[in-house]
């Protein structure tokens, strides 16, 4: 009998909400967290808006002063979110040494510590005036620059001795981490996994490297309405920071401790565009392929799919390609599946985005409400499906899928169900 994997804890930090309830309430209310950038002076850039978490207090969320000193903001977001998730799972401070040996940490991060790298480079070169040299006697923790720091820091904080790594597959990184963690539990490499994604790169270079690609929205005067996936007037994604962590647990263990089970993860599929570093082909062929593969892997038919939480990044090409792919895979049924994009409210939190979207999908299954895609004002004839416009919708959601497409060309999909759905349908 193959080991089954359930979700028993959720933690999230996003620009529209700190913690699961705050975040979920904001999403159901359709509240945007996008504002003008305060983190640095963005006046020289074409894009001056972002999803910043303005009220993040790391120590209040359980970080030690040493952790605050040694880690970058990305890692701090990850640590705080992992604390929330473990607490939510009822596993904070209750684990035995034997249990900790079988708990691992897989996290996704796209931008890693680029903000700190930029800051250190500016310091070491006096903003580009000379070659890098250590201008101060101050020791700079190397952890500030380590892409794998979020996973390693979580493992250290909670003394978790299972598999531990970071995946850096662009905007698909968080869901990739979740998928790999799911496999690790299935394969018996761990019993529980803390998994998700984190990113924070709201900096001069972090923004500009996407500005020069023409990828960011420049709707600077109207930040809350800037991220508008599927809307005709979408003009690029909005950079955001955030973190999402889930506790994945082998099902028998969760049942034995009478844990609250949010959902079951039943399939993970992924592939690569082999087309372009930043875009899907217009026919969305790679997305078509993983959607079909996800249905096949989950052994479900399309009419069993009650909800799709999409990638929906608010870029002109992405949503057109997505919609073509949905129609190619689902045919007429594509019009009957509610599809929504969380990025309309929280922007694009890069490596964290797909993990936060997995959390939204899990909560939709638990609470039977589909959060909306906000800022749907002018219909795009190329995007004519049911994107749950502007207002949350009560619905029967038993099986749901979330998918992501990433910078670098990596796409993935996760299929989730209500806790006991599989037993009543096999």
């Amino acid at each position, binding site marked *: 009998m*193959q080991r*089954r994997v359930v979700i028993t804890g959720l933690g999230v930090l996003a620009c529209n909400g700190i913690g699961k309830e705050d975040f979920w309430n904001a999403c159901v209310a359709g509240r945007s967290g996008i504002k003008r950038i305060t983190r640095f002076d963005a006046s020289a*850039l*074409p894009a001056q808006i972002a999803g910043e978490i303005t009220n993040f207090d790391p120590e209040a969320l359980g970080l030690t002063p040493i952790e605050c000193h*040694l880690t970058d903001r990305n890692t701090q977001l990850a640590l705080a979110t992992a604390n929330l998730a473990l607490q939510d799972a009822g596993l904070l401070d209750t684990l035995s040494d034997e249990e*900790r*040996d079988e708990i691992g940490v897989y996290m996704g991060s*796209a931008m*890693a510590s680029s903000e700190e790298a930029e800051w*250190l*480079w500016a310091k070491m*070169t006096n*903003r*580009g005036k000379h*070659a*890098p*040299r*250590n201008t101060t006697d101050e020791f*700079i*923790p190397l952890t500030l620059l*380590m*892409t*794998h720091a979020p996973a*390693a*820091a979580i*493992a*250290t904080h909670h*003394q978790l*001795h*299972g*598999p*531990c*790594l*970071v*995946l*850096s*597959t662009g905007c698909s990184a968080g869901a990739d981490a979740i998928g*790999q963690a799911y*496999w690790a539990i299935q*394969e018996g490499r761990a019993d529980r996994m803390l998994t998700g994604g984190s990113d924070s790169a709201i900096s*001069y*270079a972090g923004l*500009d*490297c996407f500005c*020069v*690609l023409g990828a960011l929205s420049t709707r600077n005067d109207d930040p809350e309405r800037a991220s508008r996936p599927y809307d005709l007037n979408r003009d690029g994604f909005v950079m955001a920071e955030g973190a999402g962590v889930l506790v994945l647990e082998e099902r028998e263990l969760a049942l034995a401790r009478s844990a609250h089970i949010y959902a079951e993860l039943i*399939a993970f599929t992924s*592939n*690569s*565009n*082999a087309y*372009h*570093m930043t875009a899907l082909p217009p026919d969305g062929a790679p997305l078509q*392929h993983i959607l079909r593969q996800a249905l096949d*892997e989950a*052994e479900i038919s399309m009419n069993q799919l009650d909800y799709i939480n999409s990638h929906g990044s608010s870029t002109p090409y992405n949503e057109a390609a997505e919609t073509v792919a949905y129609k190619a895979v689902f045919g007429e049924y594509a019009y009957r599946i509610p599809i929504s994009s969380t990025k309309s409210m929280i922007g694009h939190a890069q490596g964290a985005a797909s993990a936060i979207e997995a959390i939204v999908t899990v909560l939709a299954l638990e609470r039977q409400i589909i959060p909306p895609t906000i800022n749907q004002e002018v219909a795009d004839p190329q995007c004519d499906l049911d994107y749950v416009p502007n207002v949350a919708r009560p619905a029967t959601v038993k099986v749901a899928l979330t998918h992501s497409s990433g910078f*670098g*060309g*990596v796409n993935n999909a996760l299929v989730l169900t209500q806790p006991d759905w*599989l037993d009543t349908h096999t």
Partner: protein
Amino acid sequence: MKHTTERRVVITGIGVVAANGIGKKAFWQATREGISGIKPIRRFSTADLSIKVAGEVSDFSVSDYIDRKLANRTDRMTHFAFAAMQEALSDANIVLEEENPQRIGSVIANTFGGVEFAMEQVKSLYVRGPRYMSAYTAIAWLQVANVGQASIRYGLQGYCKTPVNDTAGGLEALGMAYSAIRRGAADVLLSGGCEAFLHPFSLNLLGQLSEYSYCATGDNPRDYRPFDQRATGLILAEGAGICVLEDYDHALRRGATIYGEIAGYGQTNDANGPTVPSSNGKQYARAIRRAIQEGTISLKDIAYFSLDGRALPPSDQGEAEALQLVFGADIEQLLVSVPRTTQGHSYAAAGPIDTITALLALEEKVIPPTINCEELDPHYGLSMVQDDARPLTGSAVLIGARGIGGMNVALAVKKI
């Protein structure tokens, strides 16, 4: 939910770029003979740096592998990856056009991203302004660049991943690729790691003198001395190692030459914070046991153990302790080596290069030596292959890697 089957995973092609040799022939000859590629750094001035020597790849011409346009849009790390991929694909004698592209992918680890490309563009931004940053900055900078560009160039439409795990990332990449093929998520994966972080910016940080420092500093190219009484840390290097991993039946069907199989993969974490690998070997021992059990390997099968060899007393102590825990009194019969002493530590590329060394060692029936370890500390109790290569008996090699952040990874390869 579909049930997965367990398939066998073999290696049918290898490609390597290392300081002591580009291409498997030159690399193997140097590694077997104990010829070091560690020299004074030549690509930039080290006058202001505490680190003066490294395993720098010299005589590397990117135009031998990719055109100028692609070379200009990618960082040196990706150039190395392309060189190693090209060799590995040609070595595997695989015709990609005849394969189902959706069943082929890549898993390539990297630690630091495209440092050189990124820092140059950050400089453009700060000195000249936002419009002067290259549109390829993010594309060349992020670690995912390597698998993204590989997919485009070779039409790899399947499973593609980018693990990042400090000095253990490359071995994780091979482990992940092994798991993916084993469970049927792909048939063929280009897997390994690449690294090119020898840059004044990174060396400034890595060479800081403090309790966290773990690189040998100074100008002696022989200072990478794992398990030696004088050990002061590793010497940094750049390079790439790529293997073609393949479902065994798939390899048999196309009549491929098989180096060996990946038989086991174990991972644990010391959870000891941002310090050097732990002096406590307990968790590392669990990772090694997992790899051994998964591969059903017995002591007499093991030709040698390719050690992490951090070359810092506490970490070396932890590694020796892990072996004691796993092998007990039998540790005397276990030959160990750190052939990487001839190349330096190329972070994410290191594990795959160690694996390539192991596969060539099994093929040539020779254990490559550890160099610079003239004063082996006897209290570790290790049977080290020092100075000169030794004849190899046995059918399997265990490869270990540890990283800052507590990661322990073990991989088992063996002859089919």
